[in-house]
Each structure stands twice: as C-alpha cells, then as structure tokens.
C-alpha cells in the first residue's frame, strides 16, 4: 500500500493526507501519545510558544528528512545531507556577503549548489556504480572540507543582507493572523514537504523513485534510462538540501562552516521512524515529517521536563524503539 494509489477526485491536500494516513496513521499515533504525555507531565509544554519552538526545531531536520526520503525510496542512502546543507549555506554566504549580490540570487545559489552536489552523488551512484553509502560518505567529507576551505574556517554573517534572516525567522502567517506567529521556516518546511509529496506521488520522477527501489533491474529492462532518472532524483534531493541550508543559515543569521556532521543520521532516523523502508520501494513524505516531529517533540519535551541530560539520551533511545515497535504492532494488527 504505497501512497501512490490515491486517485479519487479530491483536492491535492486531502489526497496527500489520505495517501499518507492510509499507512501513516500509525507513527502519527505515537506522536499524539507523546504530545499528550508531555502535556500532562508539564504545564509549560503545551504553550503556543513552545509548540512553535518545536515546529521551528523540526524545520531543518524535517527538510533534510524530506530530501533523504527520496533517496531512500530508490533504495539508496544519503549521508552527505548534513555537510551539503552547510556547504550550500556557505556558498550563499559567499554570494550575499562576500560578493554583495541581491537576496534572490543567494536563494538561487543555495538551491543550485545543492542540486549540483546531489547530481554529483547521483552520478557516482548511477554511472560509476559506487554504492550509495560510499558515494555519499565521500561527498560528506569532501563538502565538509570545502565548506571550511571556502569560508576560511570562520562563520560568514549575513548582517549586510537584512532580509535574509526573515527567510526563517519572519512570519508571514503571523502578520496575517497575529494569534499564530508561525515562523516562515516552518511554513517553508510544509511547502517543501507538500510539493515533494506531490512530485513523489503524481509525477514520473516519483514513480521511478518507487520503481527503482522496488526492482531496478526490471525498470532498466523495460527500457527506462535508469541512470538519468537516478541522477535527477539525487539532484532533486540536493536542491531540497539547499533549502535546508537556507533555513539554517537564516536562522543562525550566519553560515557556520563546521556544522553539519551528525545531521544525516538524525534525518535518516526521522525517515525510518516514519515508516520508510531502508531497502527501498516504500515510503512517504508525510511519514518522514511525522518522524521528524516525533524526534523534535521528544527532545523538547524531555528538556522542558528538566530531565537530566544523560537520562534524556537514554529515554530518547528507548522511546524511539518503542514508537517503532508500537507502529509495527499496529501495522500487523491492521493487516
């Protein structure tokens, strides 16, 4: 039951939700349980400001998870998303701060850089037949080093581009509905997720994502130029990573060249918690989004409860296992 089966005439949004919920009500239940649990445990948890803080904490990891979902559905993996995000941020810094270009060009630079890096990973995987783990591990290191080289190992600040920090911190929604000051970063996350879900479920590119992950050989034997599509998918994922780079740079109002390592694992974890299979062929964007939210709620909730940090880690580990276990059980019960 992939999310590709919805086709009754509905609005786009309800379609996506329907497609997702079909398999995803499950991880969603874990999310709800966590939210309720924390609300009971701490009166400070369920405040608008804290909910917004959680959403904002999800934004970067959520966008990375969306990107990596595409690659994982093809049966690959992308370890480079963390440092690629940083690299895109650094390039934006160079374009905006060092070269003094207009804001829009910076935005374009971030996305284009990501797409370029992604298509390189894709080429390694598709044309050179390098296992995705190694190809993207190599890219992860290369981009990590290049970020430091290009930035001169110091942060690049965006003080000269005043609009830049609004990308993530401003709130278009809040300007219209003052009661809901949802930052633009969160809005962008949802837009990215929505568009990617649409691409995944309603376009040829998405179809080949699932097909490649299902049985690459059979797709190839059907005369599809699998190499080209694979490169396109990695490039799309890279472009989305570029957006994550914009979000984090805007949030920190700077490109931090050393940041990024470790983010890949967190993004992959969100994807897997969301029910996407690491062996490819199955998965959903909504699931990854929920996976990322589960992780953010967990981290935030334990902090708000002032659990000692070493125990936070233990509890996070245990709850991740439990959430996925509950998910498995419900799925078994459902089938």
């Amino acid at each position, binding site marked *: 039951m992939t999310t590709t089966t919805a086709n009754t005439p509905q609005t786009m949004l309800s379609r996506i939700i329907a497609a997702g919920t079909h398999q995803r009500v499950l991880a969603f239940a874990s999310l709800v349980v966590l939210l309720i649990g924390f609300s009971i445990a701490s009166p400070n*948890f369920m405040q608008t400001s804290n909910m917004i803080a959680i959403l904002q*904490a999800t934004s970067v990891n959520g966008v990375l998870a969306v990107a990596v979902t595409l690659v994982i559905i093809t049966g690959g993996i992308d370890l480079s998303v963390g440092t690629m995000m940083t690299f895109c941020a650094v390039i934006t810094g160079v374009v905006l701060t060092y070269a003094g270009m207009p804001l829009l060009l910076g935005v374009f630079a971030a996305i284009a850089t990501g797409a370029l890096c992604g298509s390189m990973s894709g080429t390694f995987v598709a044309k050179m037949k390098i296992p995705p783990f190694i190809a993207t591990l190599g890219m992860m290191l290369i981009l990590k080093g290049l970020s430091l080289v290009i930035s001169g190992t110091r942060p690049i600040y965006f003080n000269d581009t005043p609009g830049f920090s609004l990308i993530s911190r401003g709130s278009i929604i809040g300007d219209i509905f003052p009661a809901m000051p949802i930052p633009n970063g969160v809005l962008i996350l949802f837009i990215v997720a929505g568009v990617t879900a649409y691409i995944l479920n309603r376009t040829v590119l998405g179809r080949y994502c699932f097909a490649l992950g299902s049985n690459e050989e059979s797709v190839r034997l059907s005369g599809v130029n699998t190499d080209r599509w694979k490169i396109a998918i990695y490039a799309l994922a890279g472009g989305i990573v570029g957006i994550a780079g914009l979000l984090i740079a805007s949030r920190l109002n700077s490109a931090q060249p050393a940041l990024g390592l470790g983010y890949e694992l967190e993004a992959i974890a969100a994807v897997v918690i969301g029910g996407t299979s690491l062996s490819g062929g199955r998965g959903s964007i909504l699931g990854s989004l929920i996976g990322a939210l589960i992780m953010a709620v967990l981290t935030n909730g334990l*902090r708000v409860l002032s659990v000692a940090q070493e125990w936070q880690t233990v509890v996070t580990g245990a709850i991740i296992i439990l959430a996925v276990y509950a998910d498995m059980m419900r799925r078994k019960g459902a089938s």
Partner: protein
Amino acid sequence: QDIYIPLISKGFQHQFWQAVKSGADQAAAEFGVRITFEGPDNETMVDRQIDMLAAALANNPSAIGFAALDSQAAIPLLQQAADAGIPVIAFDSGVESDIPATTATTDNVAAAALAADKMAELIGGAGKVAVVAHDQTSRTGIDRRDGFLNQIEANYPDIEVVSVQYGAGDQLQSTEVAKAILTANPDLVGMFGTNEGSAIGIVNAIREMATEGVTIIGYDSGKAQTDAIREGLMAGAITQNPVGIGYETVKAAVAAMNGEELPAIIDTGFYYYDQSNIDDAEIQAVLYD
C-alpha cells in the same frame, strides 16, 4: 514558587563542562535556587544550542546562563528573554550584544600566550614546536590556537611552529594526530595541546612512541593530565577556573534578579601549574579530576 535558572553551555560530557556544572551546583545550593545544565554534543551544533535555549525559555525561568557557540545566532531568543525581563548571564564566551548582564569568562588568548611563554622558556627559546588543537572553528579553539601562535610569532623568532592539527578533543583521535606529527617531525622539541583531550593525546603519543626530549604543555586539568605532570611527562599546563565560572554565573544570575549592579566582565582567571606548584592550595582549588 522556586527560582529556576537554566544554564545552556557549549558542551556537557567533557570534564571541563562538568567542572563548570559542579561550580554552578555549588552556588545553586548556596543561594537556594534550582538549576539545570545542558549543552550540545559538540561545539559545532549551533542550532541545537538554540533549540535548547528555546526549550529553557518555555519553562519561564527566573534567569538564564548562556555560553554562546555563536554569539549572533542566539540574539533573537536572548532578546525575547530580555523583553520578558529575564536576566541573561553569559559565561565562558561573550555575546556580542548588551543583553547579558555580565560575562563570567577566562581570557583564553592571554592564557594561551602564557603557555607560549612557558614553552619558550622550557625549550630555550628555539626549535620546532607543534600544536594539537581541539577545534578549528569554535571560539575557544581559535582563541587558544591564535593566542599561542601569535605570541610565538611576536616574541620568539627562533621558534618555528611546524604543524597545527586538530583532534576534536577526542583523546584517541588526538593521540593519532600527535603521533603523525611526531613521525613527520622527528626533531620536534615542544607540543602544546589546547584542551584536556588534546593534551592527553600528546601524552599518549609520546608514551606509545617512547619519544624523548619533547616538552609538552597542556590546557585544563583532569586526572590523566595532573598525573602526567607529576610523572614529569608533561611540563605543565594552563588551567582555567571552571568551577569558578559556574559558581560566578549562578551568583551573578541571582544578583541580576535582585537588580544589583554587575561588572561587564567577571574574569575568573587562569593559572599555569607544573610539578612545583601543583599541590598549592590555590591551584588545587581550580583543578578537577
């Protein structure tokens, strides 16, 4: 209603941060306030620290202690705290803004310069030295590296710094780094490690390669380092006063809540210690293990 002061630090698991925490705990007990102490896994995770700050603010704290990984990135949240009338105390590194009521810190540049002076003295003002640093981009990493390098460059023309490499403050990785430096430079006479992990990495490397004639200067304390100094493997080390930093931060937070005037900087000081003074009461008070 209890008084709650969260401290958001730059790290958590390292000995240095645990010493800061113990100082803060001490002050918390003394002043009857409740504190929490949190920090990201490593000093690159700027945005994670911001998330921690956001979660801390959700609990309506009475004051906040904050050691900024990047002084700009946190300003919107610090502004939010300021708007809510929550005093902010910076510790370890400053925040480039007038929001913090005060900053409890060590002058890392001056401390590393002192290490350079001691190094020059011990190796007779000439020869090749190398630095094993803990981080290429964090404030403390940069300050200590540059403090050392600039002092050598400015005052000791006969000393050549042949290599600066980074071991992430991880003892094992720093060991491998130091071994590679020793292999590449057999005529090395001195090495400076910019934090506990780096310094112990150098000690391990010297021990494993049985190299002689290399003067080691370390940074921070910890049992392995004090042992190495007592044994004579390490010439000496700079120590900050992490317990003092933690203590002063909480103390200043309480004072700020009560509307007291605070100095712009609370310099908690640094010391050079070696075999000769390691057991002095003044030094013992700032060492941790």
